[in-house]
């Protein structure tokens, strides 16, 4: 997509884009097949043209835009604007990259009355998300015991392929989990009430319809309840290195040097199968709509159709499953800490900070083009809800400061805690980024890195990594990710998610 190598070098090493400068500020960005217009700092727009129903926007610095323009992200973002009922503009967050159908980092507000719902624009891993558990341990308490801790976590938290789950579920348990989410975990003694109070939607989607979850999805899920999986999913013990907004950090209970645990995973095979089967059913039932879309993976069920209702019910059930999955892993983590540190988890202060989804669609009310309030299916695929203080859907514990947003970085870089920013409702349907975002393919990563070397180098930095597969470590090497600091800087500068704290890895387990 390179347009002009000479001028690219002149404006600072850009390989793929060519920003046109007028009076010291770039006004357009030439990404080859498309030209983006600068709306304001960090906001770039692909104007509506052809069959696009709305414009597309990228929230990024020029540095991040260079990476975003390097693969098919912009094309996928443009394609998604062909979906019926899209409102205002479809967006790519600062960490966006190429996915399947809709890019990762994509946000679309689609009218719930005359629009549609698209499983591929939510992702196979329904309610893939992150939770952060606090402790009152300091880094000093953990230093020298990292290997003991990483070994104990690795031995006790199922990960990888075929590693089973913390609970072997029967059909009754699966149905109850799909129906009641973390309320089931509370009834069964896997959670305390405070856990539910510190989770998006208090850990249960009441719109769930377990009967709409395909049997094959339930079959896949029953031996995966409480398991990390593989790929970019992980459990990481971290230390807080910096806090930025001291009043918010206080409200969140975060302070420098504190040990926290971050858990990143989703709805496992159950959610993947829900997405797969509905994608196929929608393809067969709504071929006419599919024929108008530029990518088959965007297949969508028209709002009000039976399949839209059924998919929404099944997706909400898979959301509940993912919350229980992360809850069980947190419960097991508490037990491991109890054993390693010889103190019960309550005394260790192992309270849930928050649990956020980043692959999800939700019915939410937003102000659209003409100032009208509309109920939308807000699709967030690799994007995090970022509601500000005072919003009615922010849990009571954080109503005065805004909801926590957890942005995991790579295992060699920091992660961040943000809070929902004042600008998010206006700019991004109440959303921000979800991670660092990949820049390098997995196949390339395995050529460039060897898992053992990556582990050794991280250990030099006092980061202890343990994985089922050396290839996973290579594929997830810190060098394959974008600069998480820059992603968060853009979110903060835009006011969609404000920086509260930064954390740094201590030990990490993965599939």
């Amino acid at each position, binding site marked *: 997509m390179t347009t002009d190598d000479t001028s690219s070098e002149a404006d600072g090493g850009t390989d793929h884009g060519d920003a046109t400068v007028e009076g010291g500020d770039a006004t357009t960005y030439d990404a080859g097949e498309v030209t983006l217009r600068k709306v304001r700092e960090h906001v770039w727009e692909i104007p509506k043209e052809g069959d696009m129903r709305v414009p597309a926007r990228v929230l990024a610095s020029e540095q991040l835009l260079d990476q975003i323009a390097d693969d098919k992200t912009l094309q996928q973002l443009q394609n998604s604007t062909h979906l019926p009922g899209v409102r205002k503009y479809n967006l790519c967050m600062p960490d966006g990259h190429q996915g399947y159908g809709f890019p990762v980092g994509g946000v679309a507000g689609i009218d719930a009355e005359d629009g549609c719902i698209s499983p591929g624009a939510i992702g196979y891993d329904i309610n893939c998300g992150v939770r952060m558990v606090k402790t009152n341990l300091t880094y000093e308490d953990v230093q020298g015991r990292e290997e003991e801790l990483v070994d104990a976590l690795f031995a006790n938290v199922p990960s990888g392929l075929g590693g089973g789950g913390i609970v072997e579920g029967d059909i009754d348990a699966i149905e109850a989990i799909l129906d009641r989410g973390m309320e089931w975990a509370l009834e069964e003694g896997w959670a305390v009430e405070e856990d539910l109070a510190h989770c998006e939607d208090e850990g249960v989607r009441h719109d769930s319809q377990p009967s709409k979850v395909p049997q094959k999805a339930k079959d896949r899920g029953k031996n995966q309840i409480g398991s990390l999986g593989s790929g970019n999913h992980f459990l990481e013990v971290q230390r807080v290195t910096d806090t930025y907004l001291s009043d918010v950090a206080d409200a969140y209970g975060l302070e420098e040097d504190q040990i926290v645990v971050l858990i990143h995973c989703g709805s496992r095979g159950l959610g993947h199968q829900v997405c797969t089967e509905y994608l196929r059913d929608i393809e067969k039932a709504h071929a006419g709509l599919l024929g108008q879309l530029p990518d*088959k993976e965007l297949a969508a069920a028209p709002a009000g159709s039976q399949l839209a209702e059924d998919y929404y019910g099944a997706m909400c059930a898979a959301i509940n499953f993912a919350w229980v999955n992360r809850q069980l892993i947190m419960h097991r983590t508490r037990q491991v800490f109890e054993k390693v540190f010889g103190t019960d988890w309550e005394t260790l202060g192992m309270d849930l900070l928050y649990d956020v989804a980043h692959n999800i669609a939700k019915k939410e009310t937003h102000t659209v083009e003409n100032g009208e309030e509309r109920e939308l299916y807000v699709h967030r695929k690799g994007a995090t809800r970022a509601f500000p203080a005072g919003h009615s859907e922010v849990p009571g514990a954080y109503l005065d400061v805004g909801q926590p947003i957890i942005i995991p970085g790579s295992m060699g870089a920091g992660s961040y805690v943000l809070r929902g920013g004042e600008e998010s409702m206006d700019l991004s349907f109440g959303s921000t980024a979800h991670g660092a975002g990949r820049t390098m393919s997995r196949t390339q990563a395995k050529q460039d890195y060897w898992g053992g070397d990556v582990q050794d180098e991280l250990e030099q930095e006092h980061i202890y990594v343990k994985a089922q*597969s*050396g290839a996973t470590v290579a594929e997830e090497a810190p060098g394959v990710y974008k600069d998480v600091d820059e992603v968060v800087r853009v979110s903060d500068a835009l006011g969609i998610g404000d920086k509260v704290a930064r954390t740094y890895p201590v030990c990490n387990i993965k599939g």
Partner: protein
Amino acid sequence: MGYELRDHTADVAVEATGPTLGATFAAAADGMAAAMCDVIPESGGERFPVEVRAESREALLFDYLDELIYQRDVRGVLPVDNEAAVRESDVREPAGDDGEWTLTGAARGVPLAGLGARDLKAVTYSEMDLRETDDGWRAYVVFDV
């Protein structure tokens, strides 16, 4: 003829070729196994049958790979050494049936325990390409990992 893993920013793509549709589909399935496991044991595990029906060739490829992912999770095995034969029914199936393309095949299921394999979440339609070439068929499939 066979498969190659192709670059994709976040996921994995497989390009498969074969003299027949069946051989090409089986090569795509072998590529999927390779995306999950770098060193596949040459022996071990029992063969199990796979049968899939769908309304088109592309849908059949999608459903076939999805079925193998499903079997992987419920049987706790990695499906390798895949074999497949694809045929189009002579007689159109009654309305409401899954369609007129049928795949009959088998795979060797290597137990996942101790294999150090990695998860692969799902098959996608994104950029899927299936076409006849001078030598047979070529398939391109992106997987979500």
